[in-house]
């Protein structure tokens, strides 16, 4: 699989700050994979996302060292408008993402398409399709400014999906949602993955990431502390050492390990944990 984004020893500091927000980032993101970005708040997750989209340094200013390659081309050489089509970005604060100039959710979702010059009939079809997918089809006539946090987040999500970018970066999409809606978001991400899109998602809900992601990048204190396949990274003791949240299945395994009766392998999802516990209980039943 091809590499779509590559960080080569990237450090970045926001303007007027003494400390770099991220330091010496090195990683390669492959096309079609789903990446979970985890770590404490203010640890550099959002900056990492901003760098991919070019907001650092194009929008915020500041000092960038090292190279970010998007599809093999240096970030700084990309035209901003091209990048905005290549990479869809859903921000953390849902309310900051509504354009404020569209009076209905329907038009809000269509706005990006208008900017790309898509013809009306195709636009309508696409909005209807996306709205269904993200479950905002009952809100189409509402004013985007009058939505609840959760609804607003989904509309923002829909507005970006409408653009049909190949790479989608999502910063904490579920913090405003209830668990059911949160699972919906991950179902959508799964769908995007099946369409061959590359998804990068910064999120605190590691248990969900463990189920849906291919790889995990853990960022703490401005550095990547671990990266790689989900199972490998999430069970790495370096995460709790750096204040990074770990899945409950892993916590359970650690408890058992401390009690001197470890699992034969470390589970990261609930299903794996259930499997291992069942196995042990049956084993014990057989033994006795």
């Amino acid at each position, binding site marked *: 699989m091809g590499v779509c984004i590559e960080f080569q020893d990237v450090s970045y500091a926001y303007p007027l700050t003494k400390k770099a927000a991220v330091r010496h980032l090195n990683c390669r993101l492959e096309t079609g994979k789903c990446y979970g970005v985890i770590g404490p*708040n*203010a*640890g550099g997750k959002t900056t990492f996302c901003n760098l991919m989209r070019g907001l650092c340094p194009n929008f915020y200013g500041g000092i960038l060292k090292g190279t970010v390659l998007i599809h093999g081309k240096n970030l700084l050489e990309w035209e901003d408008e091209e990048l905005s089509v290549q990479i869809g970005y859903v921000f953390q604060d849902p309310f900051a993402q509504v354009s404020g100039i569209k009076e209905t959710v329907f038009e809000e979702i269509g706005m990006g398409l208008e900017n790309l010059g898509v013809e009306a009939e195709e636009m309508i079809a696409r909005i209807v399709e996306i709205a269904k997918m993200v479950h905002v089809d009952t809100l189409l006539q509402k004013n985007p400014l009058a939505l609840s*946090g959760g609804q607003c987040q989904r509309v923002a999500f829909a507005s970006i999906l409408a653009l049909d970018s190949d790479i989608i970066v999502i910063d904490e999409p579920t*913090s*405003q949602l209830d668990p059911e809606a949160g699972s919906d978001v991950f179902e959508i991400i799964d769908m995007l993955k099946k369409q061959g899109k590359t998804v990068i998602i910064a999120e*605190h809900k590691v248990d969900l990431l463990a189920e849906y992601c291919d790889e995990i990048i853990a960022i703490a204190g401005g550095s990547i502390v671990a990266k790689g396949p989900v199972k490998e990274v999430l069970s790495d003791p370096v995460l709790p050492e750096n204040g990074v949240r770990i899945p409950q299945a892993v*916590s*359970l395994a650690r408890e058992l390990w401390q009690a001197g009766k470890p699992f034969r392998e470390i589970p990261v999802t609930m299903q794996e944990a259930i499997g291992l516990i069942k196995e042990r*209980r049956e084993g014990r039943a057989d033994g006795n």
Partner: protein
Amino acid sequence: MAIEVKNITFSYPGSLATAVENVSMTIEKGERVAIIGQNGAGKSTTVKLMNNIYKPSKGTILVDGIDTKERTTAQIAPHVGYVFQNPNDQIFNDDVVKEIEYVLRYRKLPEEEIRKRREEAIDVTGIRPYVEMHPFDIPLPIRKFLTIAVVVAVSPDYVILDEPTAGQDLWGCAQLKTVMDYLQQKGKAVLTISHDMEYVAENFDRVIVMAHKNVIADGEKRDILYRMDTLREAHVKPPLSAQIAQAVGIRDKILNLKELSAAIL
């Protein structure tokens, strides 16, 4: 001493649909209660009515025996503090210290008292490193602690936290526990709306389940979090450890990882 909610119904101004219907619950002083349920179940509306931001269309709410209908919001607020879900909706000063002191000054407390309360609120909520910053430059999850600090400084008998764990990392969750323990030790009642079942199972004694604009269950957490039909009706899942325990056939009502690992050993 309690907040008594009696058969309240309410619809927002300009809306035809009701937001809550015939809701009743009693929150005793010193209790730790969590309200759970799907978005739109009426959780936030219920607590806003307790804080007297709105007045019920039908039914009554008594705060320590005082009918909220006969008082203004500002008169009830010193007794019932409410931390909004979105901190941006709550902050309106351009300075952290001003923000915390705002109400205290409004109430003309002595300077010494203001200083003491402010310092205590800053320490308990762990926002000391951010005191010099403009409130809107503070990262969002920590901004929430600023709004908590404001309420801690006011020191009402009933503290309502709306979705305190949303977007919080390990630091935030630990800090939240510090705040809760502080409030508990001061004898305050803490009422929380939360989707985070691990947080609910860990920090609360009583759980109220809301669905379709009403209360559908109210009781001890271990009992409530194992009523599967009720939870399903409210579109809520029990804590992960409880899900695992049930899936592997452990009979005990497990609520956290410690209990789960003990049961497995």
